[in-house]
């Protein structure tokens, strides 16, 4: 693999950049692999990379039905944070955040992780109680998250309207300074390049259409539109399509696929320094390096695989954005799009062995999948390699839906009384 550096760039500048190789190779599939990962998003590519790097398993293929990173990896609003409430969540997301901090160096690929701070706005007593519960839990767990007064919040994010006359005035905010954003496509490409360099086969335009099983029920490989490919182990990391793939092995997972929309504005000179989220008015916003305001909208209420959603979801989100930042009313929406989120009943992910030997699943990341990418990939690789979960992901197994030991971050935030 050609190392990326400013020197390499300068050298190439002198010869019209003719010397760059393909970032990842596109080989013909072998007849079988030790591990097949289904799904070429950040989670799947990352899992393949960590299988090779940390577990020495390099006879690995990543099968992607479309193009790498074309699912939620390439469709999200790139927010990264780890200030969750429950230990299972803190373990996962903090593990992930620590990997984010060194990911560009580890992959030799600038994923543009930018810890510009994630601020969550509090609008009422209930928000304040909930945020302080998070802040205290995070502090005792060793995760940064601090309470800001409205004035401090305004100082951190000058466009914020903190007037008392707002419909939902802001009474404070929780800030995780290490939270921020990264470049979503770069994460897929960086993992693909680094995995490919370690011998992983990255195979695009290959759709898994069936999972073949042996006499004892164990997996033996996958049927694809390009024929059968053998595998000793299969890791499914197919986000919104996980139900569909798992169903091929007769395994039902508690998932609902919902459209989630987002939008960007026309590019503007720097105006918005951090990430701001508000659960009460339903909005989150940041500004990309290109200058677009990146805004996450809500989830449509119904199950769908259509990657589209209603205009009313977009307008509702912009209502909230313009309430928080009235100066943005003259800004223009340039592009809107949708993705499919895979949501579990407790809104926490599933990373688990399954009743089918050799079949592992990583899904249910809902609206939080991007920030989890390195951590989830890293721990999923562990699960596949060892056959049992890493202790940081031990709570994410399927069994919790039987026992009732849910990790309900959403319920913990409860609702206004």
């Amino acid at each position, binding site marked *: 693999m050609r190392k990326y550096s400013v020197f390499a760039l300068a050298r190439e500048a002198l010869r*019209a950049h003719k010397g760059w190789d393909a970032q990842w190779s596109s080989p013909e599939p072998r007849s079988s692999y030790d591990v097949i990962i289904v799904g070429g998003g950040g989670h799947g590519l990352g899992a393949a990379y960590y299988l090779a790097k940390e577990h020495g398993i390099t006879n690995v293929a990543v099968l992607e039905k479309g193009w790498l990173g074309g699912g939620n990896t390439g469709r999200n609003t790139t927010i990264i944070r780890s200030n969750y409430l429950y230990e299972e969540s803190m373990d996962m997301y903090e593990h992930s955040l620590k990997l984010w901090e060194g990911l560009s160096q580890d992959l030799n690929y600038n994923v543009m992780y930018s810890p510009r701070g994630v601020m969550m706005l509090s609008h009422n007593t209930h928000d304040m109680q*909930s945020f302080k519960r998070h802040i205290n839990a995070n502090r005792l767990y060793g995760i940064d998250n601090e309470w800001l007064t409205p004035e401090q919040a305004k100082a951190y994010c000058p466009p914020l309207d903190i007037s008392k006359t707002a419909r939902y005035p802001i009474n404070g905010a929780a800030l995780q300074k290490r939270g921020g954003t990264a470049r979503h496509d770069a994460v897929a490409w960086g993992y693909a390049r680094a995995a490919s360099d370690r011998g992983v086969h990255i195979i695009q335009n290959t759709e898994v259409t069936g999972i073949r099983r042996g006499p004892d029920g164990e997996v033996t490989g996958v049927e694809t539109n390009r024929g059968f490919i053998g595998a000793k182990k299969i890791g499914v990391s197919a986000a919104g399509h996980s139900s569909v793939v798992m169903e091929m092995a007769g395994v039902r997972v508690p998932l609902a696929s919902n459209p989630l929309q987002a939008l960007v504005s026309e590019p503007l000179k720097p105006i918005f320094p951090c990430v701001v989220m508000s659960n009460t008015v339903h909005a989150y916003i940041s500004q990309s390096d290109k200058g677009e305001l990146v805004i996450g909208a809500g989830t449509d209420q119904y199950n769908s695989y259509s990657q589209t959603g209603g205009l009313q979801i977009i307008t509702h989100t912009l209502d909230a954005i313009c309430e928080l930042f009235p100066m943005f009313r003259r800004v223009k929406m340039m592009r809107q799009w949708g993705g499919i989120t895979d949501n579990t009943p407790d809104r926490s992910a599933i990373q688990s062995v399954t009743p089918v030997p050799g079949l592992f699943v990583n899904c249910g990341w809902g609206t939080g999948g991007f920030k989890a990418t390195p951590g989830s990939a890293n721990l999923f690789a562990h699960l596949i390699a060892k056959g049992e979960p890493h202790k940081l992901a031990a709570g994410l197994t399927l069994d919790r839906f039987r026992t009732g030991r849910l990790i309900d971050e959403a319920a913990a935030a409860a609702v206004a009384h």
Partner: protein
Amino acid sequence: MSGSSHGSAKNLGAFRLKGAGRLTPARTSRFTFDGKSYTAMEGDTVASALLAHGVHLVGRSFKYHRPRGILSAGPEEPNALLDVARDSARRQPNVRATVQEVFDGAKISSQNRWPSLAFDVGSVNNLLSPFFPAGFYYKTFKWPREAWEKVYEPIIRRAAGLGVAPKEEDPDRYANRFAHCDVLIAGAGLAGLTAALSAAATGAEVILVDEQPQVGGALHFETSTTVDGKNGFDWAQETAAKLAAMPNVRILTRTTVFGYYNHGFLGLAERVSDHLDRPGRETPRERLWQVRAKRVILATGAIERHMVFANNDRPGIMLASAARTFLNHYGVAVGRNVGVYTAHDSAYEAAFDLKRAGVSIAAIVDCREQPGEAVLAEARALGITVLTGHSVIDTTGRLRIKSMTVARNGNMDIRKMAVDALIVSAGWTPSVHLFSQSRGKLRWDEASQRFLPDIYAQDCVSVGACNGTDETDLLVDEAISAGGGAASVNAERRFGWSGGMIGAAEGAGPDTRVKAFVDFQHDVTAKDIRLAVREGMHSIEHIKRFTTNGMASDQGKLSNMHGLAIAAEMLDRPIPQVGLTTFRAPYTPVTYGTLVAHSRGELFDPARKTPMHDLEAAEGAEFEDVGNWKRAWYFPKRGEDMASAVNRECRTVRDVAGVFDASTLGKIEVVGPDAAQFLNLLYTNAWDTLKPGRCRYGIMTREDGFVYDDGVVGRLAEDRFHVTTTTGGAPRVLHHMEDYLQTEFPHLKVWLTSTTEQWAVIAVQGPKAREIIQPFVEGLDISNEAFPHMSVAECAVMGVPARLFRMSFTGELGFEVNVPADYGPAVWTAIWERAKSMGACLYGTETMHVLRAEKGYIIVGQDTDGTVTPDDAGLGWAVSKKKTDFVGIRGLKRPDLVRDGRKQLVGLLTNRPSDVLEEGAQIVADPNQPKPMTMLGHVTSAYWSENCGRSIAMALVAGGRSRIGQTLYVPMKDRTIAVEVTDTVFFDKEGGRIHG
């Protein structure tokens, strides 16, 4: 600024041709561009007005800061993005000069340049461009680790971006309309107008939409088309007038169909007043139309492509159709000596029009060997030099094109020709954006080298140029048939058109270092696309994302096809195998304000207020947001802060009495012979044992067994219950009840009605509560004996039919007076007058919270959080052991819900009575454990209790009830607070007061 004037001799611009165009000098206006003042004619766009004055240089590109001019005459414009201001608050960045009409007094500035448009320091990037190929940032800036965020990223961010965001709140109004129609027609050119005539003739409700100020579409420039024997543009205006007079037709101009969503739903943005000199205060700036159309006819036309060759981006280079529009509609010549570079016949007609208007044509350079015969013959007849089989391989000129370099294809023999403008055409790309948004599928038409609509996903049809129908007679037939009716339209065009190319032209192919721009705004060149392919980006989506081709504010209207063709050539694959990126809404950018429309301030989320809201405000209440209710929080007297007001209220309620507005609590009337049975199934408690006239506190769980809601339920009669819910929970509780009633227990005869807003609820709590309300209550003995705690009765209060509850959320003797909402203020006023005279107070939600915490009463959502069972909350007694079924009965038995060590609600007393814990603080057993610490639970409620003379708190603690008496710790940021675990009742543990 003098304002509009009439008829006087003004400098309308040196390039404004007498007798050309359709504008009249009757009305002119003044505007400034980068501080310099210019005159425009009514109907001018900023682009046409600037060009009239010979101004081509209007902006700088995104990455290399290259000087840029006006490329198009329409919404596809990638270069001419300007900052347009009416005043300091009405300033809009990134406005397309080709769309914005001039209004008097407009202050217009160029963007992305410093210190000036002509001398821009950022243009050093152009020289350094070898170091900034596509995706360069992925390969560097990784070292040292912190430098990305602290050094590199801020530099990149400052360099990127185009316009400057507004700094002030936008004072303009925006409007919203919903509309339904039988047929919506997008585009009012020849095809759209014809389709409208046909559809209107059937009597269908028709909405015809066009983004330009006037209908006509391509007829704006297409002067060689005649319709029904008339000049095409004139026919269009007459037709529009005819249509507008029909009752079933609505024509919306200056309106863009920006999105085509599910089930015939379309979003339209109408520019209502941005073109007016002085819009009225009540006139909205823009209007959002949300239209549900039974059928959609897309007549969106086609967009001309530029040619991809070296230095094809200099000011003065523009699309041939744009030059024709500026000439034929605005009367503006884009130069005096114009070159033409084309792969398509249509550009010849631009040359003819210019030539006839007196503009010199340096040459028509046609990369094809064989242009259409008719246009070739006409060019010769007009004496225009035509160089077929030639290409323009370069240009010169720093801030404006000075010359074009022409070569015979495949030959090094070059010649430079002086020009002051170069008009180009690579052919036409059908506008299939809306079709694709509707989720229709395109097919590649090999013969004409374009994507055309193929499989429709909605009730929709494409007509005209957007459907690849070029011949006018076929187009008219297609439009009439799409309209479903009849119309008589005879259109003729003098010249047939042929030709077109996609991808890099001569001299911009592989193995060159030249900058041949594909995407102008994002500075994506042909070689960037080749680099992406070399780096393994083989999907068109990867190429788009790696190079950012097509991701600028024009969304690739000019660049997508060229980019695709260059990639296909590199990959040696046919174009349809490389794919096409998705066309996403909006078609052109839409102002947030337009999408928000009225939904701002008070109307963002209308606040719910109780009937007594204004009376409480008059008493000085501070309010808090609870869900979308405004609730009185506390009632400070002069000089009181919140703490002292709450302390006073708390004392007064327990010493005398207090009056509280409880109207926000949800209320549901459950009626029917099976009402008790229904409640038995929906609540954990038993209800058949509750006698009429009595109340009971109820817990509701979902199937999972976690506490969902709570409230007091009164039984008014055998078949009638008055159910109360939490304030925030009312809608979801009713929905939950309806769900079970309608779908699981439809055999039960029960009727549910929300009565939350029908009753005003006045709670009177405290030792003197009975004495306060006694005189107002008619027809009911409310003595302790006749009306004990947890009684309910229908009676009259002040002559008003009322429901009176004897209940308490304070632990004091208490009543809740329910009267019809309209009578609330009068009854409240009377009760409060009397209460005040007896030394009672008004109290708000904060005091309510403190008083209930003193008694250990929980608040669902604060002391429980969706993971708490009734037993966890200390309410196990409310779960019937006898019932064989209720919602939650099975969920409660799951292994994790019955295990030892679950978090249970307990009381906490700080070792130092003056320490008030923080709600949300975490609790540990070992305060010295290193992080990550083992957390046992958290503080759910914590207050200073004036009545206890110390702080009190409730908490959910693992194994909490078994820890009563133990000392635990609450580690805060600056210190650790030791607490004793207690039960949850802090005041009047015997509970005698409630029975008054």
